[in-house]
Structures are given as C-alpha cells and as structure tokens.
C-alpha cells in the first residue's frame, strides 16, 4: 500500500529486502517516519541498520520492497532524481564527519547551498549562522583536520541542516566521540532538528544516544521490530 502525501508518513519502507552477494542484509524490513520525529534505529553490529538507512535515503536501491518519500516511490526514481532529492530534502551526518578536507569548515557548510546554485555570499552567510548555532563559529576558517572530533561533528551537523532538509539521516553520529562531546552533538542535533521541523533517522547501537529519540525501531537479522508499551 502506498503512503499518502497529506497526513501520511514522510518516509516509509515496506517489506524491504537487500542482499550483498549471498549475504542478506535486510529481510523484510519496514519502518514509517512521521514529519518532525526523531526515530532511533538500533541493533547489533551487522544487523542491517545502516543498510536500512541507505535504502531509506535512496543511496541504495532495495532488491525488492518499496521505499516511499512523501508518497512517491523513491526506490523506482532515476539515479539523477534521487541525487537531487538527497541534495534538496535530505541531510546526512556520518560517524566520521566526512567533511571535504581541502575546504574550510565555513566552505564545507556552505557547499550544499553552493551546489544548489546559491551565490557565495548568501551561502556563506547562512553557513555562518549554522556554525554559530552549533557553537563552532570559532572554527569557521579552519580546515576539518585542524578541528577536534567534536567540533568536526558539529560542523557536519551544520552542513546537514543548512539546506533546511525534511529528513536528517545520522549514522552513528557520536560513534567516534567521547561521552561529553557525543552528548553535546546529540543535544545540538536534536534541538536544531526540532526547531526546523526536520525528522531524524538516527542509527546507533548506543542506548544513551537512542534516548534522545522519540521512539526506537530495532533491527535484528535484517528484520525490524517495534514494541508498543502498554500505558
């Protein structure tokens, strides 16, 4: 059944299967993401949670099953259309920032806007605002290699949010950080997402990180499981 645009989920995966060679990574996974909510995707290493994120984000195409974004079938869009969608509607934060090492932090954050055709001055003005919001304005003119892990991740969060995405995909965003820096990144990420109305798909194996979410979906052996607690 297809998701509806109005009043329906923002993003939905239905019976998604994905294998890498003979190894099944997803085996009938299903998830719904509603506008503005933060959902933690949890599970042990190798359970398929990152593969699920990649299918939801249109980075991977499922072998079977369907992913809908705002009612449109994401999994059957062309590569060009999916790339465009990732640039305009989605933001990404990975475990290791994945910032462009040759650019300054300011240029990194401005990059998605520049790729979208914005003039340099406007893009850098918006990037500066986001760096301030993520409390890393002081590293604006440094290259990523000159920043600490925590600063780099906050720059990455600024880059993910600068375009005003509808969904932010965060794959182990605190995995390389100590507890204190991890907490700071999560607090800023979740607050910024809530402020802008962006939904967040948060892949993590850490319960303390998942506790920043509104609800969790557990992936085990490629299958998703959600538990509704009795009130």
């Amino acid at each position, binding site marked *: 059944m297809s998701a509806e645009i109005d009043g329906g989920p923002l993003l939905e995966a239905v019976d998604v299967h994905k294998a890498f060679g003979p190894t099944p990574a997803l085996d009938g996974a299903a998830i719904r993401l509603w506008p503005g909510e933060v959902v933690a995707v949890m599970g*042990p290493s190798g359970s398929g949670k990152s593969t699920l994120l990649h299918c939801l984000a249109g980075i991977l195409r499922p072998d079977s099953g369907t992913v809908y974004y705002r009612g449109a079938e994401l999994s059957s869009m062309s590569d060009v259309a999916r790339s465009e969608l990732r640039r305009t509607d989605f933001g990404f934060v990975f475990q290791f920032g994945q910032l462009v090492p040759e650019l300054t932090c300011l240029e990194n954050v401005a990059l998605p806007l520049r790729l979208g055709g914005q003039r340099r001055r406007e893009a850098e003005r918006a990037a500066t605002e986001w760096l301030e919001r993520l409390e890393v304005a002081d590293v604006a003119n440094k290259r990523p290699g000159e920043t600490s892990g925590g600063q780099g991740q906050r720059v990455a969060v600024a880059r993910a949010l600068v375009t005003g995405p509808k969904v932010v995909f965060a794959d182990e965003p605190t995995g390389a950080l100590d507890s204190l820096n991890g907490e700071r990144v999560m*607090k800023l990420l979740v607050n910024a997402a809530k402020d802008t109305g962006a939904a967040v798909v948060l892949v993590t194996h*850490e*319960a*303390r990180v*998942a*506790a*920043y*979410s*509104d609800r*969790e979906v*557990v992936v*085990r052996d490629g299958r998703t*499981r959600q*538990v*509704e*607690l009795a009130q």
Partner: protein
Amino acid sequence: MSIGLTLLGLLETGPRHGYDLKRAYDEHFGQDRPLHYGQVYSTLSRLLRDGLVEVDGVEVGEGPERKRYAITSAGVTDVHDWLITPERPEPYLHSTLYTKVVLALMSGRSAAEVLDVQRASHLETMRGLTRRKLTGDLADQLICDHALFHLEADLRWLELTAARLDQLAKEVRP
C-alpha cells in the same frame, strides 16, 4: 544511602537548624525523594544520643524552640570514615531479568519478546532522564547520567543475551 551520615556531612559545613538541614538535603540529594521533617528530627535525635552531634544553641521565638545542631569530633570521624570507605560494588548475580529469560525458554515462550519489552521499557525511562537532563542544572545532569549509565549497562546485557538465546535455549530446555 545513609541519611544520618549525609546530614552529618552537611553539618560539617557549619551548624544548622533541622529545617535548614532538610532544605540543604533536598536541594543537593533529594531530587526524587525529599526528606520528611519527621525523618530529619528522628535522625537528629539518634545522632544526638550517639554523641555525633550536639545542640549548639536554642532560639526562642513566637513558635516552638529552634535547636541549632553542630557536628562533634566523633561525628567528623564517622563522616571521614564513610567517605573513604568504598561502596560495595553490586555484583547483580541474582537478576530478575535473567530468571525471566530462562523461564521463558524453559516454558517454550518467546524469550526474545521478554527482552524486547524490557528494552522498550528501559529506553522509555532513559528518554525521560535524557529530557530531564536537557533542561536541568549540572547536579541534575550528573544524577541522571548515573542512572543512564546503569540502564545502559542493562541494555547491553539485553543485547548480548538476545544474541545468545539459541545457545541458552539448548542449555536450559529439558
């Protein structure tokens, strides 16, 4: 936690009335469990009897007399001994969760379901603590972190057990 020793520790910073002691206790340590006045005065009576505090002065006003209590040198010794004696690490060898998992396997029920429901419940509690932490002061953050780290340890055990259910089933099923 020993209320008596905690009150003694607070008195080491200077003499106080019972009411002040209750307020100081509630502010620093009583986040979820403020002290009752009855507890404060019964504890102070015991400390007085044992020579760990003494009456430092009495104020006579319109209401009842207000005694001010001070810690004695014996009280200081008790606080010092308490602070430097490590708390006994809890080995948690008699876990209700473990018992439930084994019984579920023995009776042919879904042990995975037991673990899933427990995980959801733990995470719900952790969410509440995280929300409280986000709006709280440093004391609130540290108290919530202590609870969060313990709950996280439980969750790591739940995950590990979930990965070993097949193996465990072979060992415990008759």
